[in-house]
């Protein structure tokens, strides 16, 4: 029988979260957001990427009051806070990037001023490299 090693001490992987859906029509956006928050506990490197309609997830001024649904736009602030925390803490080896694909953003008439959180804008070609060098990609 194969022996598996489940020792995780000191293991560092880069996980990319690929958000491609708008926030309220389907459950994808919220599910990916929850998995990002859970993964923060494991201090892994992460790329939180917004592509296609996923860029609408972080559009500011969302107000779901009339839908009787919870508005989870403020929750993305945790990602920003975790990233800043990790950047400032020298003892912490955790590199997070919050990335928007330029082509997706522009196709939807958006600029970085429309977003609730601070993002890094990359071209398709640059983003292709980020995906290719990830250890795991979680789609949504």
């Amino acid at each position: 029988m194969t022996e598996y090693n489940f020792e995780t001490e000191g293991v560092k992987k880069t996980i990319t979260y690929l958000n491609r859906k708008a926030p309220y029509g389907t459950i994808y956006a919220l599910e990916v957001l929850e998995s990002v928050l859970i993964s923060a506990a494991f201090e892994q490197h992460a790329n939180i990427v917004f592509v296609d309609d996923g860029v609408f997830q972080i559009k500011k001024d969302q107000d779901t009051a009339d839908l009787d649904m919870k508005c989870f736009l403020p929750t993305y602030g945790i990602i920003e806070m975790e990233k800043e925390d990790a950047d400032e803490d020298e003892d912490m080896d955790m590199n997070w990037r919050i990335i928007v694909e330029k082509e997706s953003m522009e196709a939807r008439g958006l600029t970085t001023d429309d977003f609730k959180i601070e993002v890094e804008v990359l071209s398709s070609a640059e983003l292709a490299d980020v995906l290719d060098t990830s250890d795991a990609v979680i789609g949504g």
Partner: protein
Amino acid sequence: MAAYSVNGAEIEHDEEGYITDVSQWNRDLAQIIADAEGLDMTDEHWSVVDFLREYYNEYQIAPAVRVLVKAVKKKFGPEKGSNKYLYELFPYGPAKQACKVAGLPKPTGCV
């Protein structure tokens, strides 16, 4: 639905004692919930409750225990920055018991 009576007002709660509308919370209510939980509220207890409420107001979700530990450590020093210390304050767990006193919804998962 059952309710807490606070200064003449009725504040609804679920079968486990979590209030159903976060916005109805006040400190008198927190004291009543804490009494029901058998908690002797100290400054440290109130600091945790205040932190939970501030965090929830900003992010619309309860913090991960790890984040809470970090915040307590910052405020009260490294010897109190541990999961163990939080359990000393809230024996049924910081997530479940402290959230109840703070008027937050019952945490659904590990965050």
